[in-house]
Every structure is written in C-alpha cells, then in structure tokens.
C-alpha cells in the first residue's frame, strides 16, 4: 500500500466518523431525555402523568393533561388560523400573480422566517393581548392569542414549502386543464391542489412541528396557567412552556417531572417527523414515477 492510499484511507475513516455525528447526537439526546424522564413516570404510573389534571410540583402532583391538551389546542388553533392564509398565499403567488410579484414576495416571506420567536411573542404581548382583552374580555393572555401568534409564525414555512410543491408540478397539468376549458380556479381546485397534496401536507406537518415545539413566544402570550382551558379566552400552558418556566429552579422529582414532560413532547415530535418524512418521500417517489 502506498503512502497516498494510507492517507486516503485515513481521511475516509475520519469522514465516516463525522458522518455519524448527527445520528449520535440524536441518539444521545434521546437516551438522556428518556433516562432522566421515564423513571419517574413508571415509578408514579404513566396514567397519572398522561391523564392527571393537577400540576402541583411542590406537593408531588405531576398531572400533565392540562399541558398536553394545551399544546394540542394551541397547535390546532395555529393550524386553523395559519394554514388557510398560507395556502391562499401559495396559490396566489404560483397561479394568479405575475412572476414579478412572486419574485419579490416569496423571498420577502422567506426572509421573515428568520425573525426570532421572541420577537413574535413580544408583538403578541404589546399588540395582540391588549386587543383581545379589550375586544373579548378576559385576561388577553389566552389560547386565542397563542394560536394567532403561532399561526403567524408558521406562515413562512407553510407558504414556502407549498409554493415549492405547486411549482414542482409539470406544466402539462396546468396546460391540459386549461386547454379543456377549465378556469384557472377550477384548475387549481381540481388538478393542482390534489396533485400537490403530499407536498402541502408535508408543509403543514412541518408547520405543526414548529407550533408544538415553540417555547418562548408561547410563554410570553399564553398566560401559562396549568389548567385545562374552558374557552379560547382562558390562559393556557403548553408542554414546552412547562419545561422552560420551571427548569431554572426545579430539583429532585420536580426536575424529573420536567424531563418527563420532555419525553412526551419528544414522542409527539417524532411521530410528526415520521409522518412528514413518509409524506415527502411519497412525493419524491411520485416525482420519479
């Protein structure tokens, strides 16, 4: 073996090691979160965590149901508010606008994806919360406020990926439908949206992941009461906020319970990731076929 070959083999080995960095990090995170979070769940019963209504860490009561419900409500709300606007935007920019306008607006929207979540949360506090308080009553810090802010936060993600999905369709779909006398809108509704479905679904699932995982913005506007909200105007606490609010002073079982919160969040996110992955790989297969 020559010196050159030895050097090449060494480089290859180093690269192989680095290639496993991401997987290793994922594995270590998973192990850590589960190792810290699951013992208390099994010690005190998984049911109590998942379905317990009372979160009084000082008294050793760790019911996470309000936070689970809170996360789901807020996420659902964000999707109900954000997705229609995002899809409208994607359809307008791909099908109804001039290419010039699209070339200006799409980058602008993508630039806004980088705005830090604390900034969104802050705008929620100074603009949205007072508005809700004055218009609908209640404290203002609420499911509604959190849903609206999260709905806005997922816009850039959903818009940008949906536009990509719509633009990836072969022009013949569009031309075929138009040639048969369909209006542009009929083409969109009956041909384009159904064909781009898996890409759009993937964009929504990614937006959903962002909404479930968002922390700081939600803490600022949701009110954070650890109780199941009865109306959209009630305050709410999500899984992520539960961790962030109490982490700095928690110890012992309390800290373990926060890791247990992390475990539940982790599982939810992994399910969403797998769904998004399946959806987008189906899209990739469809493209090839």
């Amino acid at each position, binding site marked *: *073996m*020559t010196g*050159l*070959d030895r050097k090449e083999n060494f480089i290859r080995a180093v690269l192989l090691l680095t290639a496993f960095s991401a997987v290793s990090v994922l594995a270590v995170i998973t192990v850590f979160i589960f190792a810290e979070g699951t013992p208390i769940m099994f010690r005190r019963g998984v049911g109590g965590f998942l379905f317990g209504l009372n979160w009084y860490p000082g008294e050793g009561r760790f019911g996470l149901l309000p936070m689970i419900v809170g996360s789901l409500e807020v996420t659902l709300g964000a999707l109900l508010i954000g997705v229609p606007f995002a899809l409208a935007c994607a359809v307008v920019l791909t099908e109804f606008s001039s290419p010039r306008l699209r070339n200006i607006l799409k980058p602008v929207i993508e630039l806004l994806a980088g705005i830090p979540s604390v900034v969104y949360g802050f705008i929620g506090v100074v603009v949205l919360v007072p508005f809700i308080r004055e218009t609908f009553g209640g404290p203002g810090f609420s499911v509604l406020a959190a849903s609206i802010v999260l709905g806005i936060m997922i816009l850039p993600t959903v818009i940008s990926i949906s536009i990509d999905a719509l633009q990836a369709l072969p022009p013949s779909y569009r031309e075929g439908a138009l040639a048969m006398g369909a209006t542009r809108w009929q083409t969109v509704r009956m041909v384009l949206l159904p064909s781009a479905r898996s890409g759009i679904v993937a964009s929504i699932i990614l937006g959903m992941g962002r909404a479930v995982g968002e922390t700081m913005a939600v803490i600022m506007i949701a009110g954070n009461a650890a109780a199941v909200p009865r109306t959209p105007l009630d305050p709410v606490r999500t899984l992520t906020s539960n961790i962030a609010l109490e982490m700095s002073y928690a110890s012992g079982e309390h800290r373990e319970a926060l890791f247990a919160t992390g475990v539940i969040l982790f599982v939810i996110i992994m399910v969403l990731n797998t769904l998004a992955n399946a959806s987008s790989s189906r899209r990739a297969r469809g493209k090839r076929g």
Partner: protein
Amino acid sequence: MTGIRVREVSHYFGPVRVLKNINLAVEKNEILGVIGPAGSGKSTFLRSLNRLNDLVQGSRTEGMIEVDGRDITRPGTSLVELRRRLGMVFAVPVPLPRSIYENLAFGPRLAGVRGKEKLDALVRYGLEQTALWIEVKDRLHQSALKLSGGQQQRLCIARVLTLKPDYILLDEPTSGLDPVSTMKIEDSLRILKKDYTIILVTNNTKQAARVSDRTAFFLAGELVEIGPTERIFTAPADRRTEDYISGRFG
C-alpha cells in the same frame, strides 16, 4: 511487454452485462478507432481501461486487462498512477472553472511538479501540441470557460498531454463540435501519434476511417471485428460490420 492486452473482459453494471468477453490488443504508437452504435459498450470499454467505471455503483469487471504487462483489474492497483498514464478526454469538453494556465497545470501539480519554470514548460508543451499556443498565449490567465467549444476540447487534450501519459483515451471527442474544430483535432491526433498510443472511440465512422490505423467494431457489448482500418472499411469479414459502416443501422 508493452501495449494493452484485453483478455476475456466482461463488464457489469449491477446485473446488466454491458461488455461480453472482449479480447483485443492495442499496440504502441497506433491509433485504434472504436466504432459502434450508441449503447454498444464502446464508452464502457474505454472507461474500464482507466477504471473510471469504478465511479458507478455496482460496477464490476471480469477478465484481465494488462497495461504494459500489469493486470490493472486487480485490487491494490494504484488508480492515481494508472489514470496518469492513461489520459482521458471526454465527449463534452469540461474545462474546470479556473484559468487556462491553471487547467493545464492541474495534473502536474497533483503529480507534485513544483516550480514555475517546469510548470510553464509543461503548459506550453501541451498547448503547442494541440495548436492552441498561438491562439491563447496572451491570455493564459483568463478563464478557460471563455474559450470556444473547439478550443475548450483542444484545451482538454492539452491538459492530458501535460501529464506525459503513455496512452490517450478519447471518448467521442468531436461529437459536439463543428467541422472546422473537428478537423483541427484530427490533425492534432495525427501529430500526437508519434509520441503516444491513442484509442479513439467515435460515433462517426468516417472519422475512424480518416485517422485510425486499426478499427474495432462493437455491437451490443460484443467485439464483432477488429483489423486494419482499410480492410474493415473495404472488406469487412462480418455482415454486421458491413451493414453498420454502410449506414444501414446505427
């Protein structure tokens, strides 16, 4: 023992066998033309000589390819050294995105040649052999991407010459060029023959007739016939060869 000896070579991409039991020899300082329709395996054949097929997943060679007496299909063959000795020119000219000078100095630098004088001499040698020197000597440090298509392909040949290889493999080098550029490249080949052994794969049968000493005809992965160019074109032994060169298919 000099030259290339190919013995019972079959090549596979995955389960597909694209070369079937090829036997042939390439002698020193000849131009061997390789003709055949698209998909006949002639490019694969050429790429198996410098093991460039290794870049394709599932690629596998059976049989023996001896270059100057050494079987290069064996594991442990130094590919770097092999590819330096068998320079290759591709169908589409591929200048690297850097200056003319840097394109030509690329190979020598890899081989460890240092010093401006040595590099300058190699660059000049390559350009002179391909009749490019007069055309580009005043803009050696301009981007090679600005040259015309024909000039780019001659640059690619010059780039191979700076390595001082023993063999030059050309894979349809004029397929994308106009007749004048093609003629210039054919002229270069005739000159290069004095110092190099050349294998010219071409989809243009007339080109093989014009420049090669011997010609091999590939069809569907088989070597149908090989012989002196004049005989192949005037009195082919195989009916399929005759059909192909007379333009009945391909």
